[in-house]
């Protein structure tokens, strides 16, 4: 069995060496080869799926770049695990587990970021569409014009929505449906009452009266900005308390950790019976109070 495995390994090496030779003969350097492999991964089905998850988390990395970053984190983790006494295969397994689970946790925690970015950029989207709709009077032309005029400073979410919608229009799609689909693609599982969905709904009225729709989009942008300003003002009024509800427990926890790390008798006392349940109860009380303070101020 080991002989077969050795033969397969040799064959794989031979095939890889042949491919490398061909690449060099065609004038491609090693860096180009890596870039082409990265592009191929980005275009593959798993790469596209990962790209969609990265967009939803608003992490500006290509799928290949994300995998490269994971590899760059995995190497030091494996070295640390090996230095801590783990066998090399175990260290590799630990690093792979840490990096894979940490990466997917990060993507999962941030999966609503695209929706938030699109909600924040909805006034910009509404203004861009209003300007073009007032100028052209046609939904398709408005989408194409908005894409052409989108500047470098525009939000990435707006750019993505407009480009997606314009591409669908160029392929013969209806402007209204194209904008709806583009919004849905840019922020999947967006509730229908979200700001971007409302912009798409108002834009759909251009078939009835494009001038009135342009005015309505402009007014909607102003309303969305007023809503955001009201939220920001209310948050600013309670910002210090919200921060202190988190900062005080964190400072206390840091002090406690330093004390327990530098004072073995204190650590022994903290792990003994009278103090351990007291510390647990204090933790529960502080976490509950902190959460309820933040909840009270968020409502």
């Amino acid at each position: 069995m080991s002989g077969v495995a050795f033969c397969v390994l040799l064959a794989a090496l031979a095939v890889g060496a042949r491919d490398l030779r061909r690449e060099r003969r065609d004038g491609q350097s090693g860096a180009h080869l890596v870039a082409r492999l990265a592009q191929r991964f980005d275009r593959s089905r798993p790469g596209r799926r990962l790209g969609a998850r990265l967009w939803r988390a608003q992490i500006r990395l290509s799928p290949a770049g994300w995998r490269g970053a994971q590899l760059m984190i995995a190497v030091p983790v494996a070295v640390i695990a090996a230095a801590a006494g783990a066998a090399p295969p175990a260290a590799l397994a630990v690093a792979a587990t840490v990096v894979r689970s940490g990466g997917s946790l990060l993507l999962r925690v941030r999966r609503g970021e695209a929706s938030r970015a699109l909600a924040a950029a909805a006034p910009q989207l509404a203004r861009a569409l209003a300007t073009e709709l007032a100028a052209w009077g046609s939904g398709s032309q408005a989408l194409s014009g908005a894409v052409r005029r989108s500047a470098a400073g525009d939000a990435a979410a707006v750019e993505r929505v407009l480009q997606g919608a314009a591409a669908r229009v160029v392929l013969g799609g209806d402007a209204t449906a194209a904008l709806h689909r583009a919004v849905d693609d840019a922020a999947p599982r967006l509730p229908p009452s979200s700001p971007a969905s409302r912009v798409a709904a108002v834009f759909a009225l251009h078939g009835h009266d494009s001038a009135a729709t342009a005015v309505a989009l402009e007014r909607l942008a102003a309303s969305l900005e007023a809503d955001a300003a009201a939220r920001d003002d209310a948050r600013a009024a309670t910002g210090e308390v919200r921060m202190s509800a988190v900062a005080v427990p964190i400072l206390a926890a840091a002090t406690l950790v330093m004390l327990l790390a530098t004072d073995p008798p204190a650590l022994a006392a903290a792990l003994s019976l009278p103090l351990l349940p007291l510390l647990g109860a204090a933790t529960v009380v502080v976490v509950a109070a902190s959460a309820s303070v933040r909840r009270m101020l968020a409502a």
Partner: protein
Amino acid sequence: MIVSREALTVAGTLLVVASLGLLLRRGTPRVGEAEPPPGAVGRLVLAAAALASHLPGLERHSDASTLPARLALAPAAWPARWIAAGLRAQSHSAASGRGGMPSPALGRLVAGARLLTGVLAAPPLVAVCVAWFGAPASALAGSVALATATRLPDVVLAAAARRAVRSARHDTAATVDVLAATAAAGLSLPEAMVLTAGHAPPALAAVLRAAAVRRAMGGEPGAALAAEARRYGLPMLGEVAQALEWQRLLGTPLGAELSRIAGRMRAEHRAAALRRAARRGPLATLAVALVIAPTCLAAVVACLVGGLLQGGTLPLR
């Protein structure tokens, strides 16, 4: 005996976890999503509805008056999703020509959801009680759990409906904005209401859809909207109803009037949010000063004193 106790406790815990997973599984409505096929929950609710028709007390007289509004207000709450799944399973079985089960009314489906909740909640408790307290106590606990759990869907649905009405108050201005845009674009009132309802939170959407139906059946628009707003507990739509009435009687342009109302609602909402922040800020400061900071300080001091006592360095005589 200990092994069987542990096995029963583990089984009960697993059942509790499975029940909670089933209850808390949440699906967000998606724009343009196709109708999903009926799942296991829908078939279970349908089967439980058939069984519930033979059991007394699961269908209640108040269902007809309160349930439709609550289901419309809180479609994402788990009892509403169970009932929707039951309706989907029912229509699927009717469309596929199987038709093995009779078509239950809404009240019977709700009774099925109540029975299903009771059946899911009682066995874990009974299993734990059998393991630790014996058969008589477990029978008593099972009966109590069954009776309590059958009330759970109603409690959850009522709470979710109240929350929906509360959160709808924040979104009224945005919804009125969309209604103003549709009116300004020249859509007929029922069309405008239905289109706006598609982009409004559930509570406002329910009011607008019901008012559109009333209007389509010949009712006066203002009166229809006012009546539905009262029925769903959203009195702030009364001003919109008044604008509809003025438009009908005096011919005032609806779009501009609705935009004005939305602007005023937004200003009121902003003022209320700032008032609330000003009122709650000191309360939160009090909670930080009286609960969080002293508890943190007490924990640090306790560890410090414990360390000194443990090391024998505390200068006590």
